[in-house]
């Protein structure tokens, strides 16, 4: 016992090794902390360094969608006040359809002309015919519900739609691609469709109902696809389109109601300027920890 103690004098003890059963290492306690403690830790390995200008430009697509929804609500308001009559609305529908088709044609998506004609055209014709046939049902759907409830429910549904909308456009793709949309994007699409149905049910005639339903569904269902195509085609075009859209929306809302104009303007400023600045400010507090304790990631996808 005594001669063992003499050979393990402090300056002579061997280097500590990171092995289990450290009792095999004489001279070191169980709670000994070596200099190599936490040397396997990697901090902030996957964190993206953000640039203020790029974040602001990216946030333009969010405000673009906000303006689109604001325009839809404008059209609804004008229709309900009978400022726009049904023929005007039908013209708007047709022009939107045609311009949407043209944009899809001219942007180099993986969509060739023949596929476009056959696939999209056919489906959209069925869709329009179906809407026209079902228009009487929508007209009488909420006859027993008071108007106040309708406005309240529509407003909350639209807020839900904006909140849960997939702004990264990961679910928008050319026909034929198989992707699983997230739950929240399904909920948002459903909310917008239900809101459109509620508004449509307040209108006087069947043609009104058909026109407004067609308009709303066109924008909510095909709008993201069209904006995605524009963005992919040319960022400059996307920027011009978004800014002109914002200007047009703001001017229309100004003509409608001053308070709403102020609200919309402040919302756009918040989304485009304040939020990017805020994001970059709090990025410096990000602390991502990785190390040998992490769960291993499978390099293949699990197919059930």
């Amino acid at each position, binding site marked *: 016992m005594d001669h063992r103690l003499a050979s393990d004098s402090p300056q002579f003890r061997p280097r500590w090794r990171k092995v*289990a059963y450290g009792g095999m290492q004489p001279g070191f306690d169980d*709670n000994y902390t070596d200099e190599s403690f936490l040397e396997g830790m990697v901090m902030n390995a996957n964190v993206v360094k953000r640039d203020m200008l790029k974040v602001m430009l990216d946030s333009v697509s969010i405000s673009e969608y906000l303006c689109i929804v604001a325009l839809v609500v404008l059209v609804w308001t004008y229709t309900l006040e009978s400022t726009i009559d049904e023929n005007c609305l039908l013209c708007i529908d047709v022009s939107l359809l045609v311009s949407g088709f043209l944009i899809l044609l001219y942007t180099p998506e993986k969509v060739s002309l023949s596929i476009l004609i056959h696939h999209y055209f056919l489906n959209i014709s069925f869709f329009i015919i179906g809407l026209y046939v079902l228009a009487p049902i929508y007209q009488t759907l909420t006859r027993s519900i008071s108007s106040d409830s309708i406005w309240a429910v529509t407003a909350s549904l639209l807020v839900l739609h904006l909140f849960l909308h997939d702004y990264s456009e990961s679910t928008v793709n050319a026909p034929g691609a198989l992707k699983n949309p997230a739950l929240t994007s399904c909920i948002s699409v459903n909310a917008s469709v239900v809101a459109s149905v509620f508004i449509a049910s307040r209108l006087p005639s069947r043609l009104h109902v058909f026109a407004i339903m067609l308009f709303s569904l066109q924008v909510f269902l095909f709008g993201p696809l069209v904006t995605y195509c524009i963005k992919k085609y040319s960022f400059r075009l996307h920027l011009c389109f978004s800014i002109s859209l914002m200007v047009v929306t703001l001017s229309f809302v100004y003509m409608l109601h001053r308070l709403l104009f102020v609200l919309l303007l402040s919302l756009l400023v918040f989304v485009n300027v304040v939020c990017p600045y805020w994001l970059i400010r709090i990025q410096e507090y990000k602390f991502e920890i990785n190390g*040998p*304790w992490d*769960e*291993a990631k*499978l390099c293949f996808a699990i197919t*059930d």
Partner: protein
Amino acid sequence: MTGLAGKSMDRKKHRIMMVSDFFYPNFGGVENHIYYLSQCLLKLGHKVVVVTHAYGNRSGVRYMTRGLKVYYVPWRPFVMQNSFPTLFPSLPIIRTILIRERITIVHGHQAFSTLCHEALMHSRTMGYRVVFTDHSLYGFSDAGSIHMNKVLQFTLADVSQAICVSHTSKENTVLRSGLPPEKVFVIPNAVDTAMFKPAVVQPSRSEIVIVVISRLVYRKGADLLVEVIPDVCRLHPNVRFIVGGDGPKRVRLEEMREKHSLQDRVEMLGAVPHAQVRSVLISGHIFLNSSLTEAFCIAILEAASCGLLTVSTRVGGVPEFWNAVLQGLIWIHFFAI
């Protein structure tokens, strides 16, 4: 020598309360650890009491080997074998047990156990000495881990000492809980070699048998098995697999077996009772551990103690005791031959 022996006899005898949600009749790393640790402490002359929640009809006070007293507190498990997290309603029963058994040290196990956190909190409030042992590795980024780490920070803010089962686990616990590293002791788990002895007669070498015994869940790498087994069977015609254990991924393994027609080469045993683990292990040559994260893999130790060659994924705390396993393995092989 006699001086030292006399000193150990005069050392104070403690009355220890082990508290965790996970205990017999469940079988697992934490449960076995608590049981064997209690037995060793009882052998040294201390008194040990285990507090856990009731398992089905098993409720009340039971006595186990060597007078180990187990309190099965009559609470139903809530989710994943944990008791319902009540903050203060658990105080009366914990206090009763602490005072009645005249406990001196409270030892909590496993960060995932709500009963452990509550008991440690109440014990510290009453001024008892508290030790905590962490058995698993956890992440930092998903919602469940963030929540649990916050709770752990509260509980461990006032603990006397903490024990981790490997150095990687110590780093993980220190980062998660903010404990000073000097307070954390690394004491690895041990295996009962008397129970896990190699086979008297080695199985024949004409056919290589690979044994896998684990819970068939994602975390234990059951998906890796689904990918690996067909390839190995194809490349080496003389290889057979024995898969023991049950879990949600068992269906995938059965499907893989059907798809590649490996019914005669892959044997699925289902859940293996702990008493029969050794007999399953000694029927094989190689033990395969495919877990994706492991603070300390006691299955590898058990397999090495039975004389099998072990193959494992290099995760968590596994690389640390590779030396020990290798030395032990060579020794056992030599002995068996």
